[in-house]
């Protein structure tokens, strides 16, 4: 091991209490950042879950639609006009909306109904753990997620329920289709969904458009846009970005999560800076000795920076372990914390930067140091 690294590590480990305090600060900070950004990633993924699972080449939505859950309406007759456009293979109307689910005791609880033409397979429920999707083609049949069974007061497959006064039967059970609004998603056929949501037959929420093989998506997007006014034509990516942007930034939720992460970075930086500074002050005569025996300033900076990097690596390793436990614990919750490989790498870099920036105050202290001090005692 290089001597400069030996010196840095021994300086760091010499005062174990201070080192433990530093690590606690880093772990607290990194876990906070990890959780906040993991929530952000998880939230970002949840708000686009329907778009991500739909087999759409293009989405046609009402002008100004903010997200998949936006209740703006389109004229159902647009389906014919869309179908008539060159290179359009199929057009699948989607109906969404809130409804009331009657609980066994008679009370009501809100649900969010999602419906499309199940014959076209463009927006089917996924992760089916009981029952069959094909059964949803029958009127008055629904799919519900097992996570919400207790809340909806049902036992499982085959349960008969009532939605907005209309009878419904659970013929398919999903697992893990959670709503970020905590209102359960209920999949139904189009006609039933209109009944459950009270949507008039002449209206739909969105259209899913599929292209003919070999068709140019961008050109078709323009063709639709110029042929039909009052609508927006979006690629799945554009629709997902718009939904994410709305829910994360339009509502302030994302800003709050980022503010939490920023707070973590600030707290971590201050803690590491404070402990590195006090460690450097404690070793000031040693650094002055190094300077007196002729070492370049960069050598001293390296000692301090190595201390910062060691803090970062050890602190991050512990924080990552804590983070993984948190991820496992929230995996089945309403809002899972999602930590991707990129996020892991990004947070490691952030930790490094945080610790290196923290070292600046300590480095500044050594810049002001006069090597003559070693002769005066």
């Amino acid at each position, binding site marked *: 091991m*290089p*001597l*400069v690294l*030996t*010196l840095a590590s*021994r*300086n760091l480990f*010499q005062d174990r209490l201070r080192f433990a305090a530093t690590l606690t600060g880093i772990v607290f900070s990194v876990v906070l950042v990890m959780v906040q950004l993991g929530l952000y990633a998880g939230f970002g993924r949840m708000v686009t879950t329907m778009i991500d699972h739909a087999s759409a080449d293009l989405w046609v939505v009402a002008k100004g639609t903010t997200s998949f859950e936006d209740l703006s309406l389109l004229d159902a007759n647009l389906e014919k006009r869309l179908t008539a456009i060159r290179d359009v293979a199929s057009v699948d109307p989607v109906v969404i909306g809130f409804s009331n689910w009657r609980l066994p005791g008679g009370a009501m609880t809100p649900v969010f109904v999602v419906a499309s033409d199940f014959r076209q397979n463009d927006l089917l429920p996924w992760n089916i753990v009981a029952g069959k999707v094909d059964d949803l083609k029958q009127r008055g049949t629904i799919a519900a997620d097992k996570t919400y069974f207790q809340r909806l007061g049902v036992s499982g497959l085959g349960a008969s329920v009532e939605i907005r006064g209309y009878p419904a039967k659970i013929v398919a059970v999903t697992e893990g289709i959670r709503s970020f609004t905590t209102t359960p998603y209920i999949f139904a056929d189009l006609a039933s969904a209109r009944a459950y949501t009270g949507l008039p037959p002449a209206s739909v929420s969105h259209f899913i458009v599929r292209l003919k093989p070999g068709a140019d998506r961008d050109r078709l997007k323009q063709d639709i846009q110029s042929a039909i006014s009052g609508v927006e034509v979006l690629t799945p990516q554009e629709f997902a970005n718009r939904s994410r942007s709305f829910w994360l930034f339009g509502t302030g939720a994302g800003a709050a999560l980022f503010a939490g992460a920023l707070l973590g970075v600030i707290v971590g930086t201050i803690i590491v800076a404070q402990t590195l500074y006090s460690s450097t002050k404690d070793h000031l*005569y*040693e650094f002055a*000795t*190094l*300077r*007196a*025996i*002729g*070492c*370049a*300033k960069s*050598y001293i900076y390296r000692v301090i920076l190595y201390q910062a990097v060691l803090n970062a690596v050890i602190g991050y390793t512990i924080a990552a372990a804590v983070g993984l436990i948190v991820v496992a614990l929230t995996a089945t919750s309403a809002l899972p914390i999602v930590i991707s490989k990129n996020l892991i790498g990004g947070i490691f870099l952030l930790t490094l930067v945080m610790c290196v920036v923290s070292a600046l105050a300590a480095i500044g202290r050594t810049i002001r140091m*006069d*090597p*003559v001090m*070693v*002769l*005066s*005692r």
Partner: protein
Amino acid sequence: MSEALVTATGVTSVLGTGAAQVRALNNVSLSLNGGELVVLMGPSGSGKTTLLSVLGCMLTPTEGNVHICGLSTAGADAEELAAIRRRFIGFVFQSYHLFPTLTAAENIQLALDVRKQRGRKARARTAEVLKTVGLNHKARAFPRELSGGEQQRVAIARAIVAEPAIILADEPTAALDGTNGQAVMKILASVARVPHRAVLVVTHDTRLTNFADRVLYIEDGRITGEERPRSKIGLEELPANPLRA
């Protein structure tokens, strides 16, 4: 004796500002020649440490010139002065200033490391110097496990390991008993036995003049006298030169 390794000409050093301003050195001129050990003596506040700081390129004089092995320190910035120290000067401090978290061998190796001398050769040179100061069996000991005399011998080993032309020692025996002080001075005197190396020892201790080729007296920032001791310890009483000729 050989050529002058250090020359100071008309060095004046004014420290502090305003009412606290002090003329620590006043028109000091001296030279340190190769092959000699010079003892600088003077009372507290006489300017010994300031002169050592100036000669050791840690303090730029207000007036005057200092040449180290022919190089003028005039106009040199902090990094250039550090480079001169790295290249030509070894320091021995009163309080040893060893690194408490490093072993004796690592403390010595550090002086090579800052000069970018690393690896097997550096380790071998460290072992060699440790042996010369009689501490090869303490290579892995930390400073807290060493006596004061042993710590000062490690500090001397650190000062000489890179074979600098000039060794500057600040009160090297002040914290030691008589026996250890004599042992330390013998090592320093043996270092100065080579024509192209010089040692300057700053001290209060008059007993150390026996090791000196010259004794300089300083008072109120001026060199007030110079003498050559009559009863200098002979070469045969000194240990082998720890620096290669």
